[in-house]
């Protein structure tokens, strides 16, 4: 035995449905790209962490120490730049020259490790993964570094890379 069902679409319902569909389509077209962009674009703090790690690890002793210092200070906050220029650079560069270090590093991944609320400054610790290419042999070494970034106004700037001893005892 066969049963039949008749669905009747009134004109009003048809127009209402069509309007709802158009509204949904407009929303999708306007909101989805910006939502996708929001999800995929690195956040300011992440960008600062990536840029800082890249700048400090990309050492080319065929160029000058001043070039290297400039590239690090360009992405650092004021105190981070001062610490780097007055102390760390003088301690790192001679060893790099001794080992004829020439490498170009590229961050491949980054993840937030911790928000750190200090007395005067808000920091974030980021784990940044990088590929470093030896410019003499083209060999690539990869690994992670713990990077500190500090909030500067509305944005974030690179501060420093943690020493291995800090990372080992901070776990």
């Amino acid at each position, binding site marked *: 035995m066969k049963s039949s069902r008749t669905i009747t679409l009134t004109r009003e319902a048809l127009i209402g449905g069509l309007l709802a569909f158009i509204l949904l389509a407009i929303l999708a077209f306007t909101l989805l790209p910006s939502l996708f962009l929001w999800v995929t674009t690195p956040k300011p703090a992440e960008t600062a962490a990536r840029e800082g790690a890249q700048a400090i690890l990309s050492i080319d002793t065929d160029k000058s120490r001043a070039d290297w210092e400039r590239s690090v200070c360009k992405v650092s906050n004021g105190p981070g730049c001062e610490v780097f220029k007055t*102390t*760390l650079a003088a301690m790192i560069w001679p*060893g790099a020259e001794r080992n004829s270090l020439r490498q170009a590093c590229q961050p491949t991944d980054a993840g937030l490790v911790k928000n750190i*609320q200090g007395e005067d400054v808000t920091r974030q610790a980021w784990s940044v993964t990088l590929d470093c290419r030896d410019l003499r042999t083209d060999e690539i*070494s990869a690994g992670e570094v713990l990077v500190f970034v500090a909030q500067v106004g509305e944005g974030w700037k690179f501060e420093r890379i943690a020493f291995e001893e800090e990372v*080992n005892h901070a776990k």
Partner: protein
Amino acid sequence: MQNNKSRAIVLISLAFIVAFSLVLAPATPVRASEGGGWGDFIDADGNILPGVIEGGEVSMSADWMPNFPAWTGIEMDATYNVMTSENGSSVLIPSMTTLFFMALNPIESGLTDANGMLGSGAGGMLLSGGLLGAGNVSLSNLFQALTGMSQVQADQFADAAIAGNGNIWSILNPFSGQTDLSTILMELANRSLQDGNIYLMAMLYESCLTSPTGCPEELCLVNPAACGLPTPDPEAPTPEPTPTEPPTCPGPNVEQAWPTISIRPTAPNYPVVVGQDPDQRGVDIQASVSIPPVVYTWYEPIYEDVQECRASGGGTSNCTRANGQPGWLRTVPVLVGCEFRQELLPEQITQLTARSAITAASRDWIVNGLGAHWYGAQVKQGAFNLNNYAQVNMGCNGGTCTGSLTALGIPYADPGFHDLTITVGTAGTFHNGRMITTPRILTGSGQVGVWVILPALIDANP
């Protein structure tokens, strides 16, 4: 400029150190400062004594310095300012940051003994001064002086540092937001900037021979004994030092790569003698040569004028030579460096010729083989210049010089194999009008086969 700045920094630092160490030391002697080694370097006013050699800032790798992850290839050196006195004693003055890291690893760095007392450091005697003063100094005092932290916190730091096993790093928790290294490093950087990098401690070595930085060359010249070298007999006449070849830059280098050269037929696949070809097409032949640039490398010497005390001169002697004899100051150019230079020089082509010549075997076959069946068969062309049928192009681009010869429709009249040869003449290479490489004759060879159609009688009724 940099030297002046370093000198000023050292002077300011030493003024502080002297003020505390020399003036206060007799009243409150410091165990680490016993022996008063500063007297070899500075007077009571903090002025560096004549004859003291300032070595400037030096860096040395040290096991106790913190590390970046090994895969980064980055090492952290300890940095010191070095001075050597006339008698060979030497001081290593660690920068504030280096001293802080020494304090974090006090036993490994030789800053303290196992009880935390500042003692003999890294083989040298420790001298304290600056903000530390010259009283009884403990590691806790040093932490306070370096970072401005409270007594309680400094005691905690000192206990953890002496306990070792990385306990100090547990206190320096980077996630705490309070006693983290970022804040301390900034404090050290600020103090270095504001106070002219005041040095709080120094390591005194009684002889530069035992100092990690060794003896400076200037000292060995004026005081060989201080460097462990034999002392010349003052009675013996001092010979003039044997003139040695002045330092020079490495000589120039010329690299000449092999050229590529070829000649070959390009069409048709099976050419026949022109007399048998109804289209009279002939043979196409292509020849080419490519000469890579000559790589000329040389070093440009860089000289700076310096004043030297020489054995000859006019007027009254105005200086003393290394051997103690009077001398005359003269401005002489001294080689201070060699600048690497490299240029790619084109080796221009002056002539390009190509020739075709029937092989001896084919000539023999025409005369004896073919001639036996076809009366009167003979070699018609033999050898000829392909340039008569060809267009030649030559030129250089980016240091590479190329040449080509394209001969189209060459009417070969003789069947058989023909040897093809290409001969290229070059002008050599020149740099600023000077010949770097001599002209060359380059040759290449190929072969083209020309076919002949011979009728044959076939028995139609086998």
